[in-house]
C-alpha cells in the first residue's frame, strides 16, 4: 500500500489549541508521526525580563489557564529561595490546598475531554457540570475561577475563614460521591473500554527513555511524582498514595487520573482539618540579590520546572519555563505510531496537552522545509536587524 502523509492541525488537532502533527498513513494505520511546535509562541519569558518580580508573577500565571497556580507557585518558590524568605506554614498550607483544588479541576476537565474524544458525550456533560463545584470553591477562596492569583511573593493574598472551610468541605464531599460513580463508569462501561484499551501504548521502557512525566508516566507503571520524590510545600506532612497503573494505554491514563482525584480529596480534607494558625505572608524586599534557582512542581499534567536568574535589581534577568506537555510530546509521537487514524485525537488528548504552556521560540522555514532553533546571539542579531529596518538602532545596547 502506498504511503500518504497528512497534516493534522495546526487548527484544532485534538483540543482547541494549535499544534501540527504530520502523520504518515498506510491505509488507516499510522506508520510515522512528527510533532511540530511553534504556533503559539507568546514571548512570555522575554516579557518577564522587563517586569518587576511581582508583575512577572501575574504574567506567568497566564502561561496556562488551567495550571495557573502551578506556574506561579514554582516561580515564587524560586524568588523566595533567592530572597531567603521564610514562608509561614499557614501560607504553605493554603498554597497546597489551592494546588490540590486545581488538580481536581484539571483532572475532571480531562475526564470530560476524554469522554468527548471517545464519543461519550454524556460523560463530558456530567463531569463538566460537576467540575463547576470545584471552580466555585476556587472562586470562593480566591476571587476568580481561573486565574486565582492566590499567591504573592512571601505568602498568599487571602486567608481562609471557618465558613469558607465548611463550604469547601461540603462541595468536595459531593464531588467524592460523584467521583465514585465516575470510577465505576470509567472501569466498567463498554464504550470506555472499547475506545481506550490498548490504544496509544507506551511501554515503561519507552516512557523512561522519552522522559514522560505526570499521569502519562504513572500510567506506564513508573512511580514518578515530584510530590513524593522531592516534597515541596507541605506534601511531606500529608498522607496520600502515589497512583500508578500498568496497562500502558489510554485506559491506564484514565484510571490514574480518576484515582488521583480521590487522593486529592483526601489531601484537601487533611489540609482543611489541620490548617496551621499564624500569619499568611511575610514581607519580601523588591530587589532580589543576584543568584540562580531551579524548582520542580507536580502540576496536574506532570513535572513543571522553572529556572530563575536574578541580578540584584527588582526585575528578573532570566526566567525559563519547562511545562509538562513539552516532556510528554516526545511520547505522543511514539504512541501514535502503529495506531489508527481515528484514535489520534484521543491519544493526543490522553497526555492532557497544553500547547500554549509549551511553545517556545523556534523558526520554521517553509521554503526549505526546515525547523531551526535560535541561540541567544542569533536571536539578538535578528532582533537588531528587524528594528534597523524600521529605523531604530539597538546595536549600541
Amino acid at each position, binding site marked *: 500500500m502506498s504511503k500518504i502523509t497528512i497534516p493534522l492541525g495546526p487548527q484544532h488537532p485534538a483540543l482547541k489549541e494549535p499544534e501540527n502533527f504530520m502523520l504518515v498513513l498506510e491505509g488507516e494505520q499510522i506508520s510515522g508521526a512528527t510533532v511540530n511546535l511553534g504556533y503559539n509562541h507568546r514571548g512570555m519569558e522575554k516579557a518577564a525580563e522587563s*517586569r*518587576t518580580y*511581582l*508583575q512577572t*508573577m*501575574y*504574567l506567568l500565571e*497566564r502561561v496556562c489557564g488551567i495550571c495557573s497556580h502551578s506556574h506561579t507557585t514554582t516561580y515564587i518558590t524560586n524568588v523566595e529561595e533567592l530572597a531567603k524568605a521564610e514562608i509561614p506554614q499557614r501560607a504553605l498550607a493554603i498554597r497546597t490546598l489551592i494546588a490540590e483544588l486545581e488538580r481536581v479541576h484539571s483532572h475532571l476537565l480531562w475526564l470530560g475531554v476524554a469522554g468527548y474524544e471517545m464519543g461519550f458525550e*454524556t*460523560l463530558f456533560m*456530567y463531569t463538566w*457540570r460537576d467540575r*463547576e463545584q470545584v471552580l*466555585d470553591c476556587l*472562586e*470562593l477562596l480566591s*476571587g*476568580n475561577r481561573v*486565574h486565582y*492569583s492566590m499567591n504573592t511573593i512571601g505568602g498568599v*493574598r*487571602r486567608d481562609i475563614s471557618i465558613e469558607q472551610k465548611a463550604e469547601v468541605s461540603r462541595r468536595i464531599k459531593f464531588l467524592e460521591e460523584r467521583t465514585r*460513580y465516575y470510577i*465505576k*463508569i470509567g*472501569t*466498567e*462501561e*463498554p464504550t470506555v*473500554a472499547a475506545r481506550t484499551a490498548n490504544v496509544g501504548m507506551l511501554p515503561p521502557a519507552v516512557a523512561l527513555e522519552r522522559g514522560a512525566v505526570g499521569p502519562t508516566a504513572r500510567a506506564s507503571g513508573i512511580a514518578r511524582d515530584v510530590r513524593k520524590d522531592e516534597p515541596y510545600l507541605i506534601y511531606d506532612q500529608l498522607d496520600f498514595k502515589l497512583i500508578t497503573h500498568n496497562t500502558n494505554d489510554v485506559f491506564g491514563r484514565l484510571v490514574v487520573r480518576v484515582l488521583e482525584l480521590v487522593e486529592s480529596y483526601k489531601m484537601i480534607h487533611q489540609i482543611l482539618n489541620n490548617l496551621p494558625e499564624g500569619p499568611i505572608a511575610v514581607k519580601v524586599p523588591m530587589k532580589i540579590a543576584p543568584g540562580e534557582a531551579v524548582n520542580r512542581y507536580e502540576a496536574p499534567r506532570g513535572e513543571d520546572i522553572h529556572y530563575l536568574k536574578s541580578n540584584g535589581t527588582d526585575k528578573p534577568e532570566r526566567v525559563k519555563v519547562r511545562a509538562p506537555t513539552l516532556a510528554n510530546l516526545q511520547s505522543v509521537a511514539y504512541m501514535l505510531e502503529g495506531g489508527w487514524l481515528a484514535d489520534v485525537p484521543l491519544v493526543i488528548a490522553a497526555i492532557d496537552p497544553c500547547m500554549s504552556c509549551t511553545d517556545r521560540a523556534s523558526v520554521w522555514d517553509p521554503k526549505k522545509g526546515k525547523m531551526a532553533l535560535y541561540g541567544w546571539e542569533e536571536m539578538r542579531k535578528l532582533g537588531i536587524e528587524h528594528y534597523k529596518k524600521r529605523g531604530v538602532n539597538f546595536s549600541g545596547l
Partner: protein
Amino acid sequence: MIKPARIFSEVIKHLFIKPATSGYPFEKAKIMPNFRGRIDFDSPKCIGCQMCVKVCPSKAIEIRLAAIQPPAPAQVEGQPVVAAKRKFDCFMHLDHCVYCAQCVETCPKDALIMTQDFELAHTSRAALTRHYK
C-alpha cells in the same frame, strides 16, 4: 468487569432534576462575595502617589491631576494658610486590566476599591477607558 448500560439509570434520574445551568442573562448571575471585578476609585482619598500605577502588571491604570482643582480652604484668623488638597482623576483601561486587584492591595490610602461588577463588555473600545473623577 464490563457492565453495559451503567449510564442509563443515571440518565433517567436526570430527567427529574433541576437543570444545572442558570438562566443568565435573564436571571441574575450568582457571584461569590469576594469576586475580583472592576476596580472603582474614590478621588478624595487619593494622594497621587502613583504606587498603583507602578505595581499594575498590565499598565491599566493612570492617575492624573484633575483639570478642575478644589479651592483652598478659607484662611482661619491667626493660623497659617492651608494649601488646597490636590485632586486626582483615575483613568482605568478596562481592556488592559486583568482584575488581579494588586492595585487595591498596594494603595496606601484605600482609594481604589474592588467591586463585584463583571458585566463590562462594550461595543466601542473607547468606552472601555473609564474616567473616574
